[in-house]
């Protein structure tokens, strides 16, 4: 009647949640944004994304397998990092730079720290930050959206010879943020929402990003507190500033729907590994990012600050986890170690 009985310590039931499932759902939630980006920027976006994803996958395959003793591509995290990284890049960025940044993302941003779950910073942003520092001009040169030739020709900059700074064709445009910052030009809100503006590959349609975020929040694969906190605090501060001087500071909708804020709030700041694990810590983290974004945009030297705001938020995470422990059932005060 019995073979060998399995001895397993309870629970003997599990929920079926799995890391790979979460990652593939995130990738799925990014699909609308990705497709829209390709529609808007054509081949330039497609090859940038393709190269970014391929680079991340290959780097993970080569470096992580050795450490883990098995291929870790199946967990889907490299795919998600690749996609996110690709979405933060300007379409038309020289492909060799895309490759360099991708390797930096995975190798320095993730695998150096021990791989999945160990990276203190969002790997995609680490790669992007590296490129921003190394190639500031290329990283802030934007192609125009919706160009007629976008499906037939690649911008010449994409194909620049490795180690050479590319030359740019006449197609480059200004992002709504830099237009505001440097030329005091406000973009049309509808254009911001639907993505017909210049910008990074995935920064264009705030609505589609939001849609993906809602899907993930509904599936509970994303902590809704983070986008709520980031957008909420950014909106609040923007409102205060705008009330003080509406000529100098952008409106609340312009703040929320422009640049990388939506993509950052929904898909980057929510990276589970780099964000706090306790609810209270999460709120502080999110509010901090929102405030930093508005401060950097309006008072810093750069038109965009989402990337640095999130990286700074990531840096605060260990501290927030330590300080924001919830009160344990049956204990009067929060846990010891709280104030240490």
């Amino acid at each position, binding site marked *: *009647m*019995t*073979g*060998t*009985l*399995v*001895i*397993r*310590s*309870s*629970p*003997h*039931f*599990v*929920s079926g*949640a*799995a*890391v790979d*499932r*979460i990652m593939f759902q995130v990738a799925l939630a990014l699909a609308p944004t990705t497709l829209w980006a390709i529609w808007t920027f054509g081949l330039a976006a497609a090859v940038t994304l393709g190269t970014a994803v391929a680079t991340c996958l290959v780097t993970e395959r080569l470096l992580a397998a050795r450490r883990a003793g098995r291929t870790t591509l199946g*967990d889907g*995290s490299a795919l998600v990092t690749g996609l996110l990284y690709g979405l933060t890049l300007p379409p038309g960025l020289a492909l060799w730079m895309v490759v360099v940044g991708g390797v930096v993302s995975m190798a320095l941003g993730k695998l150096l720290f*021990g*791989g*999945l*779950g*160990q990276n203190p910073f969002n790997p995609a942003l680490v790669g992007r930050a590296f490129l921003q520092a190394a190639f500031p001009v290329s990283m802030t040169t934007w192609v125009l959206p919706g160009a007629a030739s976008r499906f037939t020709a690649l911008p010449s900059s994409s194909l620049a010879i490795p180690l050479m700074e590319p030359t740019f064709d006449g197609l480059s445009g200004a992002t709504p943020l830099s237009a505001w910052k440097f030329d005091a030009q406000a973009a049309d809100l509808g254009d911001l929402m639907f993505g017909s503006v210049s910008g990074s590959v995935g920064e264009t349609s705030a609505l589609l990003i939001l849609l993906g975020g809602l899907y993930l929040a509904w599936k509970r694969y994303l*902590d809704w507190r983070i986008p709520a906190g980031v957008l909420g605090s950014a909106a609040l501060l923007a409102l205060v500033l705008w009330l003080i001087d509406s000529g100098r500071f952008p409106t609340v909708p312009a703040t929320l729907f422009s640049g990388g804020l939506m993509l950052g709030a929904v898909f980057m700041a929510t990276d*589970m*590994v780099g*964000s706090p*694990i*306790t609810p209270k810590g999460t709120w502080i983290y999110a509010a901090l990012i929102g405030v930093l974004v508005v401060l950097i945009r309006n008072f810093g030297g750069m038109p965009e600050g989402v990337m640095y705001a999130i990286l700074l938020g990531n840096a605060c995470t260990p501290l927030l*986890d330590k300080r924001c*422990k*919830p*009160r*344990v*059932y*049956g*204990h*009067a005060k929060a*846990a*010891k*170690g709280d104030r240490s």
Partner: protein
Amino acid sequence: MLSFLRKSPADGTTIRGTFAHGVHPPEAKDDTSKLAIRQFPFAPSFVVPVSQHIGKPAKVIVREGQKVRRGECIAEPDGFLSVAMHSPVTGTVRGIGPVPSITGRMVEGIFLEPSAASSQEVMHGTPCDVATASVDEILTAIQRAGVVGLGGAGFPTHAKLKIPEGKRCDTLLINGVECEPYLTTDHRVMLEHAADVMVGLRYLLKLTAAKRTIIAVEANKADAAEALRAAVPSDLQVEVAVLPVKYPQGAEKLLITALLGREVPSGGLPIDVGAVCTNVATTAEIGQLLPTGQGIQERVLTLGGPGIRDKGNYRVPIGTPLRFVMETAGTTGELGHVFLGGPMMGQAVSSLDIPVTKGTTGVIAFTADQTGPLTDRLEYPCIRCGACLEACPLFLNPSRMGLLAKHGRYDEMVAEEHLFDCFECGSCTFVCPSHIPLVQHFRVAKTQMRRRKAKA
């Protein structure tokens, strides 16, 4: 939080709040919840371990070769934290010696052989009349009847019901939550023995002097709530509370929080917040045994899981070997995984040579080819998703404890993360997308820390 979404039963009883966090495992109760309790046949031999409770093992008072009757006391309580054992059959004592237990350790037990000729009528003892008996007499009667928590914990019931000097009990809670998947014994007992529950209540009320009595049932057992409500005698004030289904609501402390909004202090007992909590089957048992002076010699358990052919709720004599249980009920294939109790906290058995004891709430079996999904899971590193924190009903941080455990940093688990508050409900492991055996690590850590302390 989403109180407006909760369904109210038709009769207008309020569904109360619940505790924070927790999980929703599949209930898996439909196979057996509609099946009435049936008497299980007698095995050709029995083995009654003398320690089926927390505390000191009972003292054997029979000799090898002695004839005993069904329901006769065969082992006496040894001190206060100990209860009596009764013979499950009329027959002969075949020996006294070591028997295997679920932990793998051998414990003392009494081997019995039923006599084929006997009618197997249950022996009665001295009745304990609730109207005339004193508190101490009732406590002694419960102890002599061998009553322990039938919810599975196995703590001697009389010890739990003795209100310590200087404490007061204002609320008596009867736990009919049965939040573990598969188990339907409490459900059936409430349906079929509601009257016994009420008799038992009278004894408990006398012991605790509680002002208020609440019987807690989860919303998936609305029929049981109905049966109980109908059985409440006119002179008793009993509330039947229907709670939303959530695991681990049956845990005493969380049930108190759900019903009364009180939090039992860490390391404390329900009585510290004025409550006493007793399992509903235990209450029914008291109501059944004490008026006639009988002892516990059988219990209701759920025989379920996809590995069992004739699933159901059975009244099984204590001491029935699991092998006989399985052979009688039949299996759907070669068994690969058998555990006692529910899937969330139940203990896996390594052999079928152990007997049914007072704490056996259920026997759940899977065949060898049904165990796969649980065993072949790839473990990933913790991705700090926070699911375990949102599952833990005690607001512990299983993620951090898991990391500390991995590196053997047990001291920090105790000092900073309250390891010993964890009651091993398994909710954290249940939800973890990285498939980290969190609670399993915590058990190891606790054992290590206890050992260290014992050495020091």
